[in-house]
């Protein structure tokens, strides 16, 4: 069923792109590539690894492994409104309703046999304890080998050395399962693609800072979290280029001047994944999300001569790996660079890692005079959604900002 879903998506988007050969269509190209990834995951012909969010997907891709973080599937199930069925399965099996719904949805899918069976599993201790616990459940359920990358919180020489050694050891674990050794040439190419994508991401984010911004409320949603799945590939570079072209085109044609931008906003952490009309609501209120917290390049270019250390540094540099004061510092920089008027923090129910810092984030942003709207919402499970309350709070916040 899922293979057909992704296959149909690939065919449908390709047809649309073929009908518009001159168009830039960055978002369509991006969704096409993600659908291709989905199709590969469900094709049964690939070496599959289910992973934690911060796994080195460029390295895995260089080793011929089709990999994805499990929360991606949770988000997909929510966006296609099929998550409810899987929540019930997980909850009936004893997974607490207070837990993160990304994980509950995907665990339900595992229990319902709706997930592709992996060849092995790679957990990461960042971003969250719950994510690592869920992939341990995957390994237990599928009876597959399990490798964990411990991402230290302290950015010290010892910590980098520790993580780099683990990444290197992971390549041996992968080789054991694929019977293919790591090709340094392929890794070099993957890192080259990663570096080119990273540079393009920086360009994209710089363009998004323009006032008024050429982005809209949908264009770059969840971009920084999902793009690492593709960044080690040529397709990843092409997608980044398409987004850069799209923003340049919008600026060149003056699109950004005609778009409504009464209020410039930052969206903290991930967007709402179920079909809640937040983007439309903000459109109507003239509010524009000019930056998502995770649309940020926090790492130095990868060094092909020192690949494991580079990857380790990158993994530790991700805001969720660090302590909250560092995360807040990065947010404050974004707030100033993008000249935002306010920020929305969807406090995803069940997230101890991100939402757990709610009060500290509000205070950190207040320190630079940026008001924060904390929305108590489950970004994945819409069963207890109070749409009216959320709408009222968003409207009141926008009124206050204006």
């Amino acid at each position, binding site marked *: 069923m899922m293979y057909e879903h992704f296959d149909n998506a690939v065919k449908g988007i390709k047809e649309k792109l073929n009908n518009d050969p001159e168009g830039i269509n960055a978002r369509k190209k991006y969704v096409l590539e993600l659908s291709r990834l989905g199709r590969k995951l469900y094709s049964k012909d690939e070496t599959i690894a289910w992973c934690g969010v911060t796994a080195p997907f460029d390295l895995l891709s260089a080793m011929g492994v089709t990999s994805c973080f499990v929360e991606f599937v949770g988000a997909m199930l929510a966006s296609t409104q099929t998550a409810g069925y899987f929540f019930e399965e997980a909850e009936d*099996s*004893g*997974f*607490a309703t*207070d*837990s*993160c719904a990304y*994980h509950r949805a995907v665990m339900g899918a595992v229990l319902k046999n709706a997930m592709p069976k992996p060849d092995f599993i790679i957990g990461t*201790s960042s971003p*969250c*304890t*719950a994510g*690592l*616990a*869920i992939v*341990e*459940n995957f*390994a*237990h359920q599928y009876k597959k080998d*399990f*490798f*964990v990358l*411990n991402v*230290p*919180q*302290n950015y010290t020489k*010892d*910590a980098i050395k*520790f993580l780099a*050694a*683990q990444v290197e*050891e992971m390549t041996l674990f992968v080789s054991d399962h694929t019977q293919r050794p790591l090709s340094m040439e392929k890794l070099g190419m993957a890192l080259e693609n990663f570096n080119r994508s990273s540079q393009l991401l920086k360009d994209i984010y710089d363009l998004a800072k323009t006032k008024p911004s050429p982005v809209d409320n949908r264009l770059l949603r969840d971009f920084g979290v999902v793009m690492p799945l593709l960044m080690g590939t040529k397709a990843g570079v092409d997608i980044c280029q398409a987004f850069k072209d799209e923003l340049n085109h919008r600026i060149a044609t003056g699109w950004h001047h005609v778009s409504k931008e009464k209020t410039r906003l930052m969206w903290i952490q991930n967007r709402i994944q179920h079909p809640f009309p937040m983007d439309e609501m903000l459109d109507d209120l003239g509010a524009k999300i000019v930056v998502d917290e995770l649309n940020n390049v926090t790492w130095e270019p990868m060094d092909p001569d020192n690949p494991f250390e580079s990857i380790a540094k990158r993994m530790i540099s991700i805001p969720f790996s660090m*302590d*909250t*004061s560092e995360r807040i510092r990065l947010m404050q920089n974004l707030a100033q660079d993008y000249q935002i008027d306010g920020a929305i923090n969807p*406090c995803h*129910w*069940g997230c*101890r*890692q991100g*939402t*757990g*810092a*709610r*009060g*500290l984030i509000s*205070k950190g942003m207040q320190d630079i005079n940026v008001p924060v709207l904390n929305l108590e919402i489950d970004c994945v499970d819409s069963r207890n959604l109070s749409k009216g309350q959320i709408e009222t709070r968003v409207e009141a916040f926008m009124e206050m900002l204006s």
Partner: protein
Amino acid sequence: MNKKIGFTCAYTPVPLIEAAGFSPYRVFPDTKAPDQAGHLLHDNLCPHVKKVLDRALADDLPELEGMVFINSCDTMRRLADAWKQARPDDKIILIDLPSGTDILSLDFLSKEYERLSTTLFKWNNETSSPEIISGRIKEKISLWNIVADLVKKTEEKMSQDFFPGYASGLQQIINTAATESTDHALAMAQNKLEPEQPAKPGLSPVFVFGNLLFDPKVYDLFEDWNMHVTGTDFCTSSRFVTHVDTGLDDNIFRSLAISYLKQTPCARTMDTAMPGSIAQRIVERAKKSNAKGVIGFTLKFCDPYLARVPMIRQALQKESIPFLMLEGDCTTGSMGQQQTRIEAFTEMLEV
């Protein structure tokens, strides 16, 4: 009297604190301080962390020279973050704790424990040679190990017969080791090893596990509710009093790392070679302690435990061991709400 070092996690080696000339003070979530932690963090965090933070915010703490945090889970990480806001003048250190028990993790944790030791000595303005430091740590470990062994013996006795008040007495010894000193705990353990009352038959033997159950009164309540606690697996029970094998490595910090990472682990620590091994371990411990049933007691919103409960339930079902899962908030008040369920469970075990 020694100055105190606060800590919150069972992976904090008390002998390191004592070797540096401090007394340990485990900050238990035991407070009447107003509920304010949600303002700095979020309300859906585990009550352990929230209550500890409430204590910090309300200054419901003894004078502390510093705080040791371990990034054992997301909520503990957030506690360390919030502590800086709540008590900006406190000295704090956060130790990175790997989740696996492989060689790389052991090497890394040994360096982290060494960093902890160096920091503690610095906080006490002490400069000693590595040999002297190592000697002092070994000395403190020897004492600690005596307590650990006595605790183990007491637990073994508990698994064989029911002695009224014995389980709560054991908890008092462990709490003393956590909040006063190993010396005091040792004196107490030596006095309490022999049960004060004769063995009494008739109660239902139950193994209890989870994250935090530190109040000795809870164990008395269990007895009132017809339950003979045959063994426990909590980070506030015997799991906290880890026996440290100093012969494992020439480097004392590596010996500590091996002993702590390979002790009966918290749910957050895993053996990647055996995913879900926590479930099997609980089955084995329950059987070994002669329990007829198992009660899981975890704090609400504790991801490491809650995510593993389905695996544990499945493993216990496979062995036909009855299982009751309870969630609470660290207080005896919330335990009172569980009375009916516990009584019904123990009654069922008698049938």
